[in-house]
């Protein structure tokens, strides 16, 4: 029943893999296609029959799915050159992942202990398992499993990024000037509802609904739904943009292919500071068996990254008895007031030193 407790503090959402060490780019293979999915070892015999199609003929994706995994988005530096682990390596990697992610550990002193905040009770236990195909990163292209390097950014965009880094540093130091120093997840504006859908520490559920001509995906956080028309209509014009973008879909065989553009230019709306004018994300949802769906996304933004990049995340159907509950975030977002009143108290005490921004995003930053 941990999903009942979903109105908890938004500060602690962590996008798995974004907290890893700085990006190093090696061995890029521009244009390389993603490797085909490897079957989960030893699971084939237990698999249930693939469900058929909806009465109106579309592949049936309906149900509640969970995308939690301990596999990081980007390959850790220590595993450079190693895209898939053998069973022994996978066991060790998983053990290390569990140790790194677990909240019920007491090393690091009291400050680290407090920063871990909730204990395991609040967390999605599924996040402690790596993907069954033993990949070392969710990114499958480029071959090094890392987000590609940035293209040279305009002075204006560098300025925006620097201002964001300073705001993040003020927030991390407990000294936010105002609510705008906080990220969109902390402000309950966008969490896992905007693509790409990446696993977090909790509330990793997605309810897929279908009707003739539409697919709707309702992510648990934050209670919004992307309603995807399948009728081939054109995208909205480029002067009408949204927080979750503008989404169009089609079925390609058994795969739902979803293309999203038209993201707003508000700071933080586009994933990792991409350029809303050139950013496009294409997602592919393919049901593999009764309980598994492969989610794959490709991000293209030539004004931000040197090449497109692709990640793949297996989604697991959750037990029908386990329901998805409403994630009301903004309605009881006491955190914002606590952060701000705390900052004002610190200022009165003379605590005003904010460390220089390190460039890495804090927890909850997109």
């Amino acid at each position, binding site marked *: 029943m941990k999903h009942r407790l979903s109105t908890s503090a938004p500060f602690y959402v962590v996008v798995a893999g974004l907290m890893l060490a700085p990006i190093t780019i090696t061995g890029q293979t521009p244009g390389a296609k993603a490797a085909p999915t490897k079957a989960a070892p030893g699971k084939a015999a237990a698999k249930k029959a693939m469900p058929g199609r909806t009465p109106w003929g579309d592949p049936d994706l309906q149900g509640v799915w969970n995308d939690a995994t301990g596999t990081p988005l980007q390959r850790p530096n220590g595993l450079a050159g190693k895209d898939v682990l053998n069973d022994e390596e996978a066991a060790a990697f998983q053990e290390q992942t569990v140790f790194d992610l677990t909240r019920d550990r007491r090393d690091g002193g009291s400050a680290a202990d407090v920063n871990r905040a909730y204990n395991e009770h609040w967390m999605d236990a599924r996040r402690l398992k790596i993907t069954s195909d033993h990949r070392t990163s969710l990114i499958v292209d480029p071959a090094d499993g890392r987000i590609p390097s940035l293209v040279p950014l305009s002075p204006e965009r560098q300025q925006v990024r620097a201002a964001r880094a300073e705001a993040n540093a003020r927030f991390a130091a407990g000294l936010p000037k*105002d609510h705008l120093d906080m990220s969109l997840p902390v402000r309950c504006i966008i969490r896992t509802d905007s693509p790409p859908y990446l696993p977090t520490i909790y509330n990793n559920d997605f309810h897929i609904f*279908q*009707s003739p001509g539409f697919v709707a995906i*309702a992510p648990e956080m934050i*209670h919004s*739904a992307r309603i995807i028309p399948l009728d081939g209509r054109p995208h909205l014009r480029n002067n009408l943009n949204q927080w979750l973008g503008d989404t169009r879909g089609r079925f390609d065989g058994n795969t739902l292919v979803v293309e999203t553009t038209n993201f707003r230019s508000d700071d933080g709306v586009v994933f990792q500071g991409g350029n809303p004018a050139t950013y496009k994300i294409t997602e592919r949802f393919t049901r593999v068996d009764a309980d598994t769906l492969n989610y794959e996304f490709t991000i293209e933004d030539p004004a931000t990254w040197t090449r497109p990049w692709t990640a793949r995340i297996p989604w697991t159907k959750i037990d029908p008895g386990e329901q998805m509950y409403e994630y*009301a975030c903004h309605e009881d977002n006491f955190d*914002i*007031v606590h952060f*701000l009143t705390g900052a004002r108290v610190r200022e009165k005490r003379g605590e005003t030193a904010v460390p220089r921004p390190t460039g890495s995003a804090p927890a909850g930053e997109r």
Partner: protein
Amino acid sequence: MRLVMTCVGTAVVLACLSMAAPPVVGQQASSPQFPPYRPARMADGHPDLNGLWQALVTANIDVQDHEARPGPHPEIVGAYGGEPPGQSIVEGGDIPYQTWALAKKKENFEKRATVDVSNDKTWHAVGDPELKCYMPGVPRATYMPFPFQIVQGSSPYILIAYQFTSATRTIRMNWKGDAPTDAWMGWSRGRWEGDSLVVDVTGQREETWLDRTGDFHSDAFHVVERYTPASPYHLLYEATIEDPKVYTRPWKMSFPLYRRMEKNVQLLEFKCVSFTEELLYGKFRQPNGDVK
């Protein structure tokens, strides 16, 4: 059942003109303003409610009769904030409040534009939740001046996605269990009664209001909705509401929903959180800090 409606707009005028239609029989829309209608059906034989729908009543201002009035702070927003008149959607005209509750409603109205989030314990004590961009609850979500989309397929779950603050709710068909926890949009259990989708809603957070006039409920709020196709372009919406802590008896509201017919119309996002943050959190800003 008598249905009072606002006859504005071409489509509504047509509906009003048809009020003289003969009474219907059987499982069809039970309202006298619509002639008998047999709706299009899904593969399972139940009516197809898919589509983008919107109410045209002004009940979000006041579910009861209301005269035109200025909004809060007319010295700033002028006629932009003015609130149009409208007729009651409540059967019999008035909500049957207990005496204390009527006084509470008046107090709610007086403080409807007041916000105070300085204390967690009294966070929700004053102010219209709509002003603060909180999820509106049921039935208010249905008659806010924003469209919503029904996504009905072949699973036991129906999605209603509302434009206002991107609120959503899942209707669990033939679900037996009670609401496991309170939620802003409640816990919706659906069933078919003839051609009507009947939705039993419990477990709503007690903080939601029914309108900008301060109409309210308690944690004993129980809403039973009926969505009945009345033409290819109309659903009849009815809600029976009970709350023994606040009202003297159950009461009922009804109004039509209109299908949005614009070419390529789609549910756009109204994520209003960022539009209310200054109102909620501005006073906690660093003194002399730049207002961005």
